[in-house]
């Protein structure tokens, strides 16, 4: 049974349509990715799911209940907003203790959860420092754990790695993978396709407020990524390959094929040294390009 069900969500700001009929379901324990470029409507969708924004149309159902503003439901939802939401003049520990107390935690339980969160974010040594003294990556990590103190089963992470150096990003990523291993249900928005590929069981490709395709990464690649592409560079263009198909560019032979091994065999049999050989398997980037005609980073 799905923990989160989103049906036909719609939201406009003035006459700008931000979310235009989005539907999906996320099963318990699943990691679900919303992948899309800037302005695709990811944050707006998350806002409606957690009850920060009122949908113009459509419904959100969490755990069988359909009013995410109900306190009992809010206790089961954890959010890391895209915009850093921290008190800069409180220490890491104070931020955590404060947000924890809003979720009814107190005393030893609260202390224990704060300790867990500091360890989770790798901020134990800086726990007594004001948030404003933290690097961008540390603030991101703190922003992430501030939403997890009450140990919610449903976690929504809105671009938790944005603007972070690769090392910090990896640390954040490993934390999230740990959450996934612990059986949390995760909704993850990003415009980094590698993140979606690495973490998400299923991914929805979003653009202009709509979901263009939704499937497992393998399924998306299979259906929308096109065939694997073999790229081989020869010193000279072999005569034997004149009728073999594909294209020639800069002395490179490029062939899209479901059977790359056969293409390789043809190349080897051409009797020339191979300067460069590559098999490019389709990825989400290719899927996005195929679906929209644009690159994700545009």
């Amino acid at each position, binding site marked *: 049974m799905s923990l989160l069900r989103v049906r036909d969500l719609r939201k406009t700001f003035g006459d700008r349509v931000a979310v235009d009929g989005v539907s999906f379901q996320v099963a318990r324990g699943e990691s679900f990715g919303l992948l899309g470029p800037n302005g695709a409507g990811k944050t707006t969708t998350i806002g409606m799911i957690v009850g920060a*924004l009122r949908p113009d149309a459509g419904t959100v159902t969490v755990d069988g209940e359909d009013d995410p503003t109900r306190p009992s439901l*809010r206790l089961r939802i954890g959010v890391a907003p895209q915009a850093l*939401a*921290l008190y800069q003049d*409180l220490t890491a520990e104070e931020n955590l203790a404060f947000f924890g107390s*809003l*979720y009814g935690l107190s005393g030893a339980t609260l202390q224990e959860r704060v300790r867990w969160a500091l360890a989770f974010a790798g901020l134990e040594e800086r726990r007594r420092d004001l948030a404003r003294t933290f690097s961008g990556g540390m603030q991101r990590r703190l922003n992430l754990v*501030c939403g997890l103190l009450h140990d919610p089963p449903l976690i929504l992470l809105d671009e938790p790695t944005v603007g972070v150096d690769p090392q910090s990003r990896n640390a954040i990523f490993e934390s999230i993978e740990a959450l996934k291993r612990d059986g949390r249900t995760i909704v993850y928005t990003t415009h980094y396709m590698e993140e979606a590929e690495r973490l998400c069981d299923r991914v929805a490709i979003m653009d202009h407020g709509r979901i263009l395709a939704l499937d497992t990464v393998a399924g998306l690649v299979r259906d929308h990524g096109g065939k694997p592409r073999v790229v081989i560079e020869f010193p000279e263009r072999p005569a034997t390959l004149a009728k073999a198909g594909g294209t020639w560019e800069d002395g490179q032979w490029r062939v899209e094929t479901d059977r790359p091994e056969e293409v390789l065999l043809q190349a080897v049999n051409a009797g020339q040294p191979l300067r460069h050989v590559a098999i490019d398997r389709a990825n989400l980037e290719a899927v996005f390009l195929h679906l929209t005609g644009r690159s994700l980073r545009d």
Partner: protein
Amino acid sequence: MKAIWALAAKDLRLLLRDRADLFWILGFPIVMALFFGSISGGGGPRAALPIAVVDQDASPMTQSIVDRLRSSEGLKVREAPLDSARNLVRRGDLVAYVLFPAGTGASFGFGGDSTQSVEIGVDPRRSAEREYLRGFVTAALFQSIQGSFGASGGGRDQVRASLDQLRENPDIAPEARERQGTMLRALESFMVALDSTRTDTATGGTDGEAAGPNIRVVEVTEDDSGPRSAYEVTFPSSIAWALIGVCMSFAVSLVQERMTGTFLRLRLAPIGRATILAGKGLACALAAAVAVTIVLCLGVFVFGVRISNPPLLAAAIGASAFCFTGVMMVVSVLGKTPPSVAGAGWGIMLLLSMTGGGMIPLVAMPAWMQAVSNYSLVRHAIVAVEGAVWRGFGWGEALPPLGILIGAGILGMAVGSRLLRTDRA
């Protein structure tokens, strides 16, 4: 409830870490108290002083004095019984009352009771106005006596009649007859002289004060002693600044939270909108109460300010803190960014303070501003605190300012929380 405390504690902790905010809440009010305390006593251009006259004599003489006071542009005169006149002065609604006790008119005649005196009861805060007022009353007295004894008045006839009587009365000892005769003749020639030098000084100067009839000036407070020092006046006034500082600091922190996203986290927590607002309000009210208390404590322990009614003071501080928490909620929705809220907020606050006596003493204000000051919450906060410090208010007198403060607080909270968007956009 736990969440409200958590919210309030968070805000207070943040406040303590913001040195600039602390300065506006504590440093600035104290500086203002010391500054005005040390320079007080200066005058300035004045509006008509509101006073009451209490005419217990109701003689033609006192009636004519009252008429003269009425006709002078520098005064706004109303008649009232002594009790209510005293209360009005004590509450700060009037600058002074002028009392003509029974027998005043006769005492200006001959052989009258010279110990009978006109009493001016002034608000000790308006000490700068005291001599000014004494001048008015003195001038009015002189002019009335002059009018009565001058050619047109009955005074000269009375003197002549007295002289005739003196001559014809056989029972009077020769020395006494001689003495009184000399005096009456001198008086007669004095009145002739008066007549010829008569000038119109109806709008009064302060000349002639030293030679005036017996005028007694008393200060109107419970124990008739008034503030012992200017600091007893300036410390209560400076609480206005403390209240404004707290109010602004919290209003700005509220927009700041809305902008930075921490407010989003509060909204996503399993607490209601009422809880969020209550937490903010509690922190604001506590900070206001503490700031006012600190400012007053400095006044009490270092500058000798006395507090005549501690429970009333507590009520006044509580009501003021509550009121300005409501103001804070309204101010916080005046703009969408901290600078716009701070700008609009300080504008309103300066107006409230200026018209409420936080900057210019009420007496030095033009008349229209004095009228406006009744609408300034700052004024009511100051009056309530002063009532407990040295004005000697009872609960009955304190009720109107306290009521206004609490009412305005409730109104502000209602309006502010309605406008503050905590629900979903």
